[in-house]
């Protein structure tokens, strides 16, 4: 489902461009889960951003099913982000001006794929039913991350990208949130690629890859 081939990405540095990704290739089947580990600054988030259409690559291709993401323009990538790919951020990145109910449904509505019944199921499963009228600032970190997961899954994406999804949560909350996410992702049949430092999280995935010096290795 996801085919990443020979991906290169560099950023300008004080002494010229700094290569972050050096020919990364990986594949992920539908419904499969993959953990991407690596040191801080190894380029995990950059890889995730390129795969999610949030950033562009210097070279190489990213293919999602039949769509070659790296060939899309800004509008095409935005469309992809709305409906096909869902991203769960470490910082949750909820929309502070919208309440929980609207945050949950936001991406699905953007994609024109709102399914109120599914959103209600997600709210229930994520334990958010009692908080639907609250605003993000009124929620705990764990609750906010659950809203972010729900928002992503409400659109039934084919690929879920998670960037340190439990990195901002304490261990117990993180474990609970992770379990929920894995269950729900499995139910939607989406593939999951998660970037993490956590061994415990990585161990729950089908596969794991390690990113070092801009290259992945098992």
């Amino acid at each position, binding site marked *: 489902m996801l085919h990443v081939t020979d991906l290169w990405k560099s*950023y300008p540095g004080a002494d010229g461009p700094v290569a972050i990704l050096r020919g990364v290739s990986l594949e992920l089947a539908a419904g499969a889960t993959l953990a991407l580990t690596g040191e801080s600054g190894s380029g995990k988030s950059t890889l995730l951003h390129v795969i999610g259409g949030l950033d562009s690559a210097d070279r190489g291709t990213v293919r999602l099913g039949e769509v070659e993401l790296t060939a899309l323009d800004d509008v095409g990538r935005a469309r992809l*982000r709305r409906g096909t790919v869902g991203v769960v951020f470490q910082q949750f990145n909820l929309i502070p001006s919208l309440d929980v109910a609207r945050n949950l449904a936001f991406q699905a509505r953007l994609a024109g794929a709102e399914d109120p019944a599914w959103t209600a199921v997600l709210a229930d499963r994520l334990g958010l039913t009692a908080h639907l009228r609250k605003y993000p600032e009124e929620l705990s970190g764990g609750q906010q991350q659950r809203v972010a997961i729900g928002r992503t899954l409400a659109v039934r994406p084919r690929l879920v990208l998670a960037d340190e999804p439990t990195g901002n949560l304490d261990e117990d909350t993180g474990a609970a949130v992770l379990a929920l996410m894995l269950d729900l992702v499995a139910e939607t049949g989406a593939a999951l690629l998660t970037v993490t430092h956590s061994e415990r999280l990585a161990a729950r995935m089908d596969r794991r890859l390690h990113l070092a010096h801009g290259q992945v290795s098992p």
Partner: protein
Amino acid sequence: MIGAGLAALLSHWRRRPFQLLTLLLGLATATALWSAVQAINAEARVSYDRAAAALGPTRRDRIAAADGQPMDAALFVALRRASWPVTPVIEATIPTRAGPLRLIGIDPFTLPPQDVPQVAGAGFDAAFVTPPGQLIAAPATAERLAAADLPPLIAVEGAPPGVAYGDIPTVQRLAGLDGRHSYLTVTGPAPIGQRPLSEITPDLRIEPATDAAGGDLARLTDSFHLNLTAFGLLSFAVGLFIVRGAIGLAFEQRRPVFRTLRALGLSRRTLIGLLVGELAVFALIAGAAGIALGYGIAALLLPDVAATLRGLYGASVDGSLSLRPAWWLAGLGIAMLGTAVAAAGALWQLWRLPLLAPAQPRAWARGSAAALRWQLAAAGGLALVALAAGLLGGGLIGAFVLLGALLIAAALTLPAVLHAALALGARSARGAVAEWFWADTRQQVPGLALALMALLLALAANIGVGTMVSSFRLTFTGWLDQRLASELYVTAETEAQARALETWLVPRTDAVLPIWNVDATLYGLPGEVYGVADHPTYRDHWPLIAALPDVWDRVAAGDGVLINEQLARREDLWPGDRVRLPGWPDAPVAGVYSDYGNPLAQALLGLGRFDALYPEAPRLRFGLRVAPERAGALAAALIDEFGLPPGNMIDQAEIKAFSLSVFERTFTITGALNVLTLSVAGFAILTSLLTLSAMRLPQVAPVWALGLTRGRLARLELMRTALLAALTFLCALPVGLLLAWVLLAVINVEAFGWRLPMHLFPRDWAVLGLLSLAAAALAALGPARRIARMPPAQLLKVFADER
């Protein structure tokens, strides 16, 4: 420790030079507009004082006719023979092609030189006292009068502006006061054995020395200057919104630094002291820049103000500006004061900030429900103050309290109104983007509130003043048509010529309407009494605003008089009351007429009654009714037939054009201040948007990540600002109309003595609305472009950085 603390505080500005520029520019602009108005006022006051000082005779006792009329010149001779140390003076205002001219006739042989030092300094030569005489005037006045048909003008530096001095016979001839003096001035102590005045003549009385002339001018123009001051204050307040916004933002952003400095051992007192010092330096720098800018603005506007004062009050003000120490010191003072006012809230918050307060900057000026409630309560209180000032407070000060309270209350209410309107919009929103747009716009209100309040004030002032000026223009144009019904006005050179003219004109015109008038003191202030014929020209056209039945019959029969609105309002005299006129102390008021643009009290009598009361009045002027197309030919014939100088004939169109030009110039300064205030408000929006745009990133990036393109986000940013500007405009509309009503119905009456009907000008509002939308969109263009062109890497930083 202090040095290290200061370095830490100042490093904020080094890293954010634009924010510093905003603060300095806001303060400089506010100071500039205020200082410009003060400079204009100061210059005008100096001119009034100079005029008062130059008219030395007013500083001495005067001997004048008991009935307030010009006195017979023979009385001067009689008094000199009786050893009275007196000198004759004639004061008169004559119409010239270059506008009205104040003439002062003096006798160089009996006048003490110190009474008119500037003029006497020039030395009087033989030409001054031999026909055709000379007139001495300030260079600017002489230049203005160059085209007028007058004796040779001698320009003398330092002479009071707007006045021309001439020898007694010269001025008598020009003013039509042959054989008469306005009054005599007592030039020295009475010699021993001097006969008392009452023994010489019972018709004269001694008026003790006063500052009357200068005082009158100052009193007449006080309201105009107060109006200017109010506008300056409004501009200053609008500028302070920018300053307050910039200071508030800087304080919020530096909150972590404050906490760290406190934690590292800097006392609260020292920290506040450092911040006060920092702000004082900024205030001095911005104040100095503002004063320089204000000087430029004042120099630019002063000629128009001078023209206004001349046209409206007959007061002459130098068109040039001097840099007075008191003025620039006051400018620096107001800059410091403004900074203190703008920073007071932030400093107070800092004073109360606990040492372990959260280090993360709160969202800038985040408006909590409680803050909104407080603002609404304050607005309610101010609305009550406005109501009380409207109902109970009299006078111009009361009117301005009403105005100020009204404007500030409206500004304080704005955020709550915007919240309500946006909540209403959110309720009707369909679709995720629309919902986010409304909700996000609502969230932006606190950050933009100060700028939007400034915009509200500027727009309301614009609508209010615009409505007043346009209402005035409409009324004034209609009034001119009514008032200037005669097609041609002609002034004879002598009474004999006037009689000949009348005889010659009767068969050649539809009507010859004598217009006699005398200057008179009415209720202690300068005024004029007119005698007019009973004719349909008056009956059909005269702009009466209140009258008894058969008003014109009463006037024609000599049983009643008409008075102008200024006199009616000042003395509260209305139809049925009795007015005190020279020689007729209980004249029944038959009607009141509008008399815009005239600072003097005026009464209108039937010609018969006028003749009986004022037999000495010059009978030189006529209004001629002819077919408009014949007016030019008639004027030419009068020149041919009687050798009348062209200046003695003024046709209706010419007066109308002149009056309208005076009118337009009158409002040049209000127009200019209006534009400047609106620009300041536009600048406030721009700076708020620019500073907010940096803080917007964390709010915009997630929406982008979820699939909205940068281009669409940028368009939404533009729409958001335009929407807020449009809502602010809608709020400003009723406030502006209320302001217009206060200006027309309260302030104009207090300031000028006339009340104007209010007209509405929806097309002007539409233009202003579009302008404000365009200004807001223009201000939002930069931040929107920034979003549209922002590299994804920068947006992604939001997800990487700890926020």
